[in-house]
C-alpha cells in the first residue's frame, strides 16, 4: 500500500474530496459486464467488414482484381486504394503523427505495400464469414522488393528506399538532397564536448539496443460506421480521442468534418496506441459504398502485425564524470526505428535522454529511421524509456566504479527548480530530488538481498502535456450535478473529475455523474494522452464547476435583491453580505429554485492548458537470476513518483503499478521478432509474452507530492512516466546480480546465458 509523503510546501488548500478513494462511477458497469467497448456495439442492418493485408514486407502493388470477391453472395462493398484519394493534409493527432499522407497511407496502401500486414483492400458482407471468404478471393499482384529490416541496412548507402519523396527533416547542413530512409534528425547541444570530456576523470562509452514492443492493450481496435445518404457520418469506435478520429477521417476521406459525429466507446486500454486511426475510414468508405452500417473488429494477430508498436532503438552513448561523481559531458547518438512511416521519436528521445541531470556539456542527436515494419504509434511516454535506459545504465556503472550509492550519485547530478532542461526551458518546481530521497529512505533500499539476487535503481522523466480541453457541468434541481468532458476514460479519470466537481461545489462525490461526451456534445478536446486528462481536462472541470458556483451566487443575489459581487460562497452555500439579515442559501436550496430564478444552470469551461509540470519517477527492482537457465524473476519492486497532488490515490498507484509491469515486460520478455522476409514471427499473445500475474510480485508504491504551480490543486500528469524507469531498474538489477552489464533488451534467458558465458 502506498505511503503519502508530506509535500515540500504546504498544499494550497485543504481538500474534502480530492485525495479520497471513492468507488469509481463507471465501476459497477465494468464488474458486471454491462460496459460497452468497441466490439460490443451494433446498429440495425449492420454488415461486417474485413481487410486484406499484404503478405510481403515491401512490394509494389501491380494490380488488384476484386471481381470474384464482389460476385460472392452477401458481399456489399469492396474498396482498394482507388477508393480513397491520397492526401497530404496536416491534422492534430495529439501525441501521434499529424501527417495525413502517412496516416492515410497506413490505413490503406496506394501503390506500394510497406510492411507485412499493410492493408491493400477491404470488403464488407452480410456476415463475417462471407466477408472473410470474399477477402480470400481478392487477387493482388505484387512485385516483391527487398525489405529493409534493421537500422543498419536502412541507413547503409544504396539501401532500398521506402518513400521516394522522403528527405531528412532537420538534416545537417550540406547533407545531400536525395531520397533516404532517415526521416528526421533532431539535435540538441550545450557547452563544449571537448572541454567536458577533458575535465572528466572517468569516461564510459557503450552501445545500447531496444526492440519494438507493443502497447498490448487487451481490447483490439473496433468500430461501427454508418454513412447516411444525406452525407452524415456516425462512427462508434474505441479510441483515446474521438475528436482526432473525426478530424483524421475527414482529412483521409476528404469529407466535411462537420458532418461526422464520433462516439467513443468504453476503451479497453490504449497506452498511446489508440491515438490514431486504422479501421475507421475504411468502415466509413465501405458503408458509403454499401449504404449499410459496417462493423470492423481486428483480430489479435492483426493488432500485433499492423498497429502500435513503439520504435526499436540503437544508442551510442559516452558520458564523462569527475571522481566526486559530478557529470561533465555526455554525447548521445540515437537511431529510432519508426517502421514504414516517419515517427516522432527522434524529437522526444533527444529531449528526454538527459533531462533528469545537470550536464554542462552535451551533444545529442537522434534520428527516425524507416524500415519495412509496422508504423510506430505513441506508447506511454513515447521515446523516453529507450532514451533514458542507456543513461540510467551508465550512471549505475559510474556508481559501481566510484563505489558510490547510485541514488546518491543521482542526487548529486539531479535537476531541480531553475535548471534549464536540455531542450531549453527552465524547470519550475519539480520533484526529482524528493523522489530520489523517498527512494533512499524506503525500507526496500536497505533490505538485505539473498544469493543470486541483485538490486537496481533507475529514474525516469516525462514532460507531460497540457493541450486543449473542454468541460460542461450541469446542475440538477435535486442538487446533484453532471460533468461531461471529451476524454475517453482509460484509468479512472471520470472518478477524479467527479471528485473535482464535488470539491468545488461541496456535494458528495456520489452526487456527481461524470461522463464522456461525443464530438457533438462537448467542446473540442485533445486526446486522452500525454498524462493530460487529470491535469488539463481536470482544470477545465474545476473552472466549469466554478462557473456553476458563480451562477449560484448570482441567483442568491437575485433572491436577496443585492449585487452579485456582495454574495460569497463557502461551505457549499451562498452567504449574504454582513449587512443583510438572511440565512445562507445552500446549493441544494438554490438548485431547487433554479426554474424560478433564471432557468437551468450550466457551467462551462474551455482552455488551452499551460505547459504541464514534468513528472519524475524512481523505481527499485530486486531481480533473482537462475544462472543455470538464464531465467530471471522480479522478487521485489517499488515505484516512487511525484504526482503533484494525487486526486484519487488508488488510480495514481494503479498507473505506477501498471507502468512498472509494462516496463518489466519490455525489459525481460517483450520484443517483436521478424523473419528474414520481414514477417512478424510472434504475432499472438502466446508468443508475444506480456507479464502475467505469476511473473510479478506486489508492486509497492510511494506517491510524492510536490505541487505543480500551473494547476489549482497542484496536480501533475501521472500516467506515462511510470514506464520510464523500469528498463534501467531491471537492467541495473541484472548487472548487480550477474556482474555482467547487459546493453540489449529484452533480457531473455538466452541473452542472459550468452552474457554469463562470455564472462566465463
Amino acid at each position, binding site marked *: 500500500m502506498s505511503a503519502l509523503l508530506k509535500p515540500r510546501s504546504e498544499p494550497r488548500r485543504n481538500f474534502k474530496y480530492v485525495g479520497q478513494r471513492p468507488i469509481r462511477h463507471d465501476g459497477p458497469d*465494468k464488474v*458486471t*459486464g*454491462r460496459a460497452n467497448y468497441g466490439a460490443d456495439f451494433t446498429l440495425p442492418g449492420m454488415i461486417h467488414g474485413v481487410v486484406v493485408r499484404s503478405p510481403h514486407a515491401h512490394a509494389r502493388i501491380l494490380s488488384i482484381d476484386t471481381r470474384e470477391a464482389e460476385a460472392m453472395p452477401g458481399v456489399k462493398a469492396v474498396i482498394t486504394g482507388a477508393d480513397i484519394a491520397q492526401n497530404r493534409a496536416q491534422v492534430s493527432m495529439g501525441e501521434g503523427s499529424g501527417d495525413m499522407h502517412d496516416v492515410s497511407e497506413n490505413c490503406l496502401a496506394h501503390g506500394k505495400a510497406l510492411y507485412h500486414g499493410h492493408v491493400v483492400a477491404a470488403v464488407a458482407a452480410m456476415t463475417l464469414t462471407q466477408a472473410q471468404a470474399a477477402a480470400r478471393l481478392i487477387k493482388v499482384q505484387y512485385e516483391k522488393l527487398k525489405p529493409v529490416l534493421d537500422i543498419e541496412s536502412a541507413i547503409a548507402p544504396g539501401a532500398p528506399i521506402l518513400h521516394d519523396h522522403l528527405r531528412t527533416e532537420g538534416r545537417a547542413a550540406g547533407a545531400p538532397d536525395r531520397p533516404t530512409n532517415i526521416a528526421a534528425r533532431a539535435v540538441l547541444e550545450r557547452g563544449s564536448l571537448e572541454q567536458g570530456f577533458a575535465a572528466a576523470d572517468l569516461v564510459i562509452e557503450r552501445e545500447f539496443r531496444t526492440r519494438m514492443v507493443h502497447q498490448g492493450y487487451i481490447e483490439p481496435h473496433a468500430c461501427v460506421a454508418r454513412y447516411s445518404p444525406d452525407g452524415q457520418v456516425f462512427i462508434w469506435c474505441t479510441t483515446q480521442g474521438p475528436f482526432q478520429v473525426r478530424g483524421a477521417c475527414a482529412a483521409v476521406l476528404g469529407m466535411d468534418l462537420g458532418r461526422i459525429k464520433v462516439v467513443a466507446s468504453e476503451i*479497453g486500454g490504449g497506452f498511446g496506441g489508440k491515438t490514431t486511426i486504422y479501421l475507421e475510414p475504411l468502415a466509413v468508405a465501405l458503408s458509403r459504398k454499401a449504404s449499410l452500417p459496417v462493423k470492423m473488429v481486428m483480430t489479435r494477430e492483426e493488432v500485433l502485425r499492423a498497429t502500435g508498436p513503439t520504435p526499436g532503438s540503437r544508442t551510442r552513448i559516452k558520458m564523462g564524470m569527475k571522481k566526486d561523481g559530478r557529470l561533465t559531458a555526455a554525447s548521445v547518438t540515437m537511431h529510432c526505428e519508426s517502421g514504414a512511416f516517419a515517427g516522432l521519436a527522434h524529437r522526444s528521445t533527444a529531449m528526454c535522454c538527459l533531462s533528469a541531470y545537470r550536464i554542462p556539456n552535451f551533444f545529442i542527436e537522434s534520428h527516425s529511421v524507416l524500415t519495412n515494419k509496422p508504423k510506430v504509434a505513441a506508447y506511454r511516454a513515447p521515446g523516453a524509456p529507450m532514451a533514458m535506459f542507456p543513461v540510467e545504465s551508465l550512471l549505475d556503472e559510474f556508481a559501481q566504479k566510484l563505489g558510490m550509492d547510485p541514488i546518491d550519485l543521482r542526487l548529486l547530478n539531479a535537476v531541480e527548480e531553475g535548471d534549464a532542461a536540455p531542450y531549453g526551458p527552465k524547470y519550475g518546481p519539480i520533484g526529482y530530488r524528493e523522489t530520489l530521497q523517498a527512494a533512499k529512505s524506503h525500507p526496500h533500499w536497505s533490505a538485505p538481498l539473498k544469493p543470486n539476487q541483485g538490486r537496481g535503481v533507475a529514474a525516469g522523466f516525462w514532460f507531460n502535456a497540457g493541450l486543449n480541453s473542454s468541460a460542461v457541468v450541469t446542475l440538477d434541481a435535486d442538487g446533484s450535478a453532471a460533468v461531461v468532458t471529451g476524454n475517453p476514460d482509460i484509468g479512472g479519470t471520470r472518478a477524479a473529475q467527479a471528485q473535482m466537481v464535488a470539491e468545488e461545489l461541496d456535494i458528495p462525490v456520489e452526487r456527481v455523474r461524470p461522463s464522456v461526451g461525443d464530438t457533438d456534445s462537448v467542446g473540442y478536446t485533445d486526446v486522452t494522452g500525454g498524462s493530460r486528462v487529470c491535469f488539463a481536462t481536470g482544470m477545465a472541470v474545476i473552472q466549469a464547476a466554478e462557473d456553476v458556483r458563480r451562477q449560484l451566487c448570482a441567483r442568491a443575489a437575485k433572491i436577496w435583491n443585492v449585487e452579485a459581487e456582495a454574495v460569497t460562497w463557502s461551505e457549499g452555500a451562498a452567504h449574504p453580505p454582513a449587512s443583510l439579515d438572511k440565512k445562507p442559501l445552500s446549493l441544494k436550496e438554490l438548485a431547487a429554485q433554479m426554474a424560478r430564478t433564471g432557468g437551468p444552470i450550466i457551467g462551462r469551461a474551455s482552455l488551452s492548458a499551460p505547459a504541464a509540470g514534468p513528472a519524475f519517477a524512481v523505481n527499485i527492482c530486486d531481480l533473482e537470476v537462475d544462472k543455470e537457465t538464464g531465467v530471471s524473476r522480479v522478487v521485489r519492486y517499488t515505484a516512487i513518483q511525484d504526482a503533484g497532488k494525487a486526486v484519487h490515490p488508488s488510480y495514481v498507484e494503479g498507473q505506477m503499478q*501498471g507502468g512498472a509491469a509494462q516496463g518489466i515486460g519490455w525489459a525481460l520478455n517483450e520484443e517483436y521478432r521478424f523473419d528474414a522476409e520481414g514477417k512478424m514471427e510472434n504475432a499472438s499473445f*502466446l508468443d508475444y509474452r506480456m507479464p502475467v*500475474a505469476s511473473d510479478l510480485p506486489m508492486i509497492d508504491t510511494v506517491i510524492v507530492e510536490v505541487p505543480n504551480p500551473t494547476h489549482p490543486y497542484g496536480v501533475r500528469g501521472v500516467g506515462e512516466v511510470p514506464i520510464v524507469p523500469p528498463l534501467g531498474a531491471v537492467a541495473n538489477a541484472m548487472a548487480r546480480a550477474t556482474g555482467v552489464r547487459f546493453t540489449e533488451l529484452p533480457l531473455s534467458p538466452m541473452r542472459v546465458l550468452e552474457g554469463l558465458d562470455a564472462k566465463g
Partner: protein
Amino acid sequence: MSRLHVETTVNGEAAEFLCEAQENLLTALRDRLGLTGSKEGCGTGDCGACSVLLDGRLVPSCLVLAAEARDRQVTTIEGVAEGGKLHVLQQKFLEHAALQCGICTPGFIVAAKALLDRNPDPSEEEVRYWLAGNLCRCTGYDKIIRAVLDSAAELRKEIA
C-alpha cells in the same frame, strides 16, 4: 449454409440459438444471445478475457465450440451478481480499484470465482498462478490479487 440449433442453460436460464458449425461459444454468447460482457482479446485462449464457466469449469469461451454448450450449464459475467446484488468479488474489485480500463475485468472475476468456489483460502501464490491465464495490461495485477485475497477472506467470514 445450414445452422445448428443449440439448447443450453446460460446463467440459470434456458437459452437457445442457431450457430454455424465452426462458431465458438464466445461469438454465440456475444452475437446470438447479446451477452457482450465476455470479451475477445485474442481468440486463441491466451488472454482470458472471454472466461466463462462450463458446468462449473473455467474455460476460455473462444476455444469452446458454440455447439458444445448443448445441454450444459454456462455461467458468464452477467450471471455472477445474484438478484441485483454484486458478488463479493465484484464489490472488492471496486473497493480495491482493481480495474482501470476494465476490459479484462469480467474474465478476471469469472476466473477468480472459479478459484474461490474450489479453494476458499488460497495463498497469494495460488491466486497468481490460477489467474496466470488472464492478461491485464493496466494494473500490474497488484490490486487484482489484493481484491481476490480480500474477497476470499470476506467469503470465509460469511461462511463462519
